[in-house]
């Protein structure tokens, strides 16, 4: 198996941005944080951009205050040679900042009060992904860190992260919104003639469903936004380019489970199709056997001991071992299947910690396991 050398990756000064992606529930946030901790320990000035960290993990990184800017993390107990900074994405704030930065005061206030803006800046599917990329762009532009580790939003599919910004920009930048908003500008007539009866019916249906007011708000918003930024599409394109630039790499995080590995496979294929560099797969929370003892023999011995009732401790220990060997075996088979399909993708298994991780010592330990120590 082609083994992923995490230390090598983290030590390489050419590694500037590491994007951790994968489906929900696989431990992306923890992995991203542990990578940043490890990088800092090894001398880099690292920052981790987390999206939606668990409360206690956020506390351990000093992320309780919403600042939407990186803060230095004070590390007790073990010494980083470099520096560790961390931040938690505030999606609404990032969007607001974008507006303030690019619009005059009056126009910015107008946009911020638009009901449609309030909807899309908080609950539009794709806004979180889009803002994560926007923030990443800002951190890169600031140039204060030599390694940026990015966590990605907890979408149902790893691919959402690549597609959402594009989808959002298509919706807001596309022909449709112009056509739908045309009546507002042209005084409510004309659209039927231009695009035909089907579309007229559709417009009518849409405004019946979502309400004419919403359409009008959307239209006002898009016009203001358009003149301000030169369009969503360009902005989304810029983030895409950033992801393809030298120095950016992707780590796919997966659990050693069929669903998560299937998602990981899709993502690997997609990244290659887009010409984006994939650094490797992190197989999170594996359960390798710690004692080289064949499971069938252990089970037979456990049976004997249980029948005789002589050595309950040894019997229990052998059962624990056999359970673990079965899990390890399954995980190995699943990972081998992934490697057969993607022989070029280096892989590292990260043995599970028995307890949840929510402090720096835990992240340090995961960092060690990532590096195979």
């Amino acid at each position, binding site marked *: 198996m082609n083994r992923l050398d995490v230390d090598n990756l983290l030590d390489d000064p050419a590694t500037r941005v590491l994007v951790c992606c994968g489906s929900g*529930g696989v431990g992306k946030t923890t992995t991203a944080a542990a990578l940043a901790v490890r990088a800092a320990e090894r001398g880099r000035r690292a920052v981790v951009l987390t999206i939606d960290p668990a409360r206690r993990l956020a506390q351990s990184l000093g992320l309780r205050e919403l600042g939407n800017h990186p803060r230095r993390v004070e590390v007790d107990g073990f010494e980083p040679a470099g520096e560790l900074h961390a931040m938690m994405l505030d999606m609404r704030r990032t969007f607001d900042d974008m507006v303030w930065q690019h619009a005059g005061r009056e126009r910015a206030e107008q946009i911020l009060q638009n009901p449609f803006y309030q909807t899309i800046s908080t*609950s*539009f599917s794709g806004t979180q992904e889009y803002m994560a990329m926007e923030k990443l762009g800002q951190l890169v532009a600031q140039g204060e860190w030599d390694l940026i580790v990015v966590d990605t939003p*907890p979408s149902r599919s790893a691919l959402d992260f690549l597609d959402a910004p594009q989808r959002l920009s298509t919706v807001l930048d596309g022909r449709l919104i112009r056509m739908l908003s045309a009546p507002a500008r042209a005084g409510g007539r004309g659209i039927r003639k231009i695009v035909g009866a089907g579309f007229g*019916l559709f417009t009518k249906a849409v405004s019946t469903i*979502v309400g004419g007011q919403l359409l009008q708000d959307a239209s006002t918003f898009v016009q203001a936004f358009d003149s301000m930024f030169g369009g969503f599409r360009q902005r989304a394109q810029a983030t895409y380019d950033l992801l393809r630039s030298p120095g950016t790499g992707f780590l796919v995080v997966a659990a050693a489970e069929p669903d998560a590995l299937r998602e990981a496979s899709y993502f690997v294929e997609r990244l290659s199709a887009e010409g984006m560099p994939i650094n490797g797969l992190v197989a999170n929370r594996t359960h390798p056997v710690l*004692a080289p003892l064949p499971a069938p023999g252990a089970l037979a011995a456990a049976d004997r001991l249980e029948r005789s009732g002589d*050595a309950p401790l040894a019997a229990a*220990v052998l059962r624990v071992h056999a359970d673990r060997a079965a899990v390890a075996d399954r995980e190995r088979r699943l990972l081998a299947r992934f490697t057969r399909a993607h022989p070029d993708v280096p892989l590292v298994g990260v043995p599970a910690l028995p307890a949840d991780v929510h402090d720096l010592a835990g992240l340090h330990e995961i960092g060690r396991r990532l590096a195979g120590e």
Partner: protein
Amino acid sequence: MNGWTDELTRARLHVVTGKGGTGKTTVAAALALALATGGRRVLLVEVENRQGIAQLFDRAPLPYSEERIASAPGGGEVRALAVDPEAALLEYLDMFYNLGFAGRTLRRMGAIEFATTLAPGLRDVLLTGKVKECVRRAGRAGRHEYDAVVLDAPPTGRVVRFLDVTRAMADLAKVGPIKGQSEGVVTLLHSGDTAVHLVALLEEMPVRETLDAVAELDAADLRPGAVFVNRVRPPRLPARSIASAAAGRVDAERLRAGLASAGLEVADEVLGGLVDQTVEHAVRVRMEEQAKDLLAEADLPTLELPELTDGVDVAALYELAEVLVGRGVR
């Protein structure tokens, strides 16, 4: 509380949610099989365009129609439906505006995608609307077409927003066909016909998320049903030795002697590995106990499902369904 209740037996719409990675789709499928056991007809619905049901039952992606995917013991059957919001919107528009052929053109133009993303609530209203239609649909002889509908719902973080149709409608038009339709959905979701089940693992994070979701459901006046504790592993150590083993105290010499009495002479390295594994096991069991205590705060009927080391295939779904039937699911 342990096992299924009579109140849950009366529910006809079973919404299944859980934190990502807890096995929500697997539990939803097993629940559908369990409910169908003994000759009933159950519809299993998914709404997130994941084709998770097709993958679980090892089939080609489901079309937008109700397909038979499994027989249940005792003559029952499970059908499956992957609701696609675009198709659901076209269905509505067709019903009220007779779009016919034009609908396909609109789809090609991306107009449907546009409408369903323009108003975030619209998508959810369409999806829950379709579910309601399935629950209420009449079949033969004055009975419902389906005895029960199981919905593989969005994960806990999004489920209340998804089910809170009243709030979604606040964003939408105050009149029109969707408005009328949604009132029926609200009635169904807040009635005794609906139960929202939560899938959890015995780990702190999924349990906390479950408790948060229960509180959110209560606040939105939606009814939490049962908690399915998934992937439960058997404790191997006797309860009295858990605490000391978790603290790292495993008597290596006693272990060595015990192994020797079963004919296993092990090297120090193997012995050390066995001790480490046992300590990890004990730590995990302790954490699971804490998670269980925490979960008890939800005060909901709880059903445990065993971990399947060989993974989940169709045969395993039947196994899980049997476990559920054994816990009273009907």
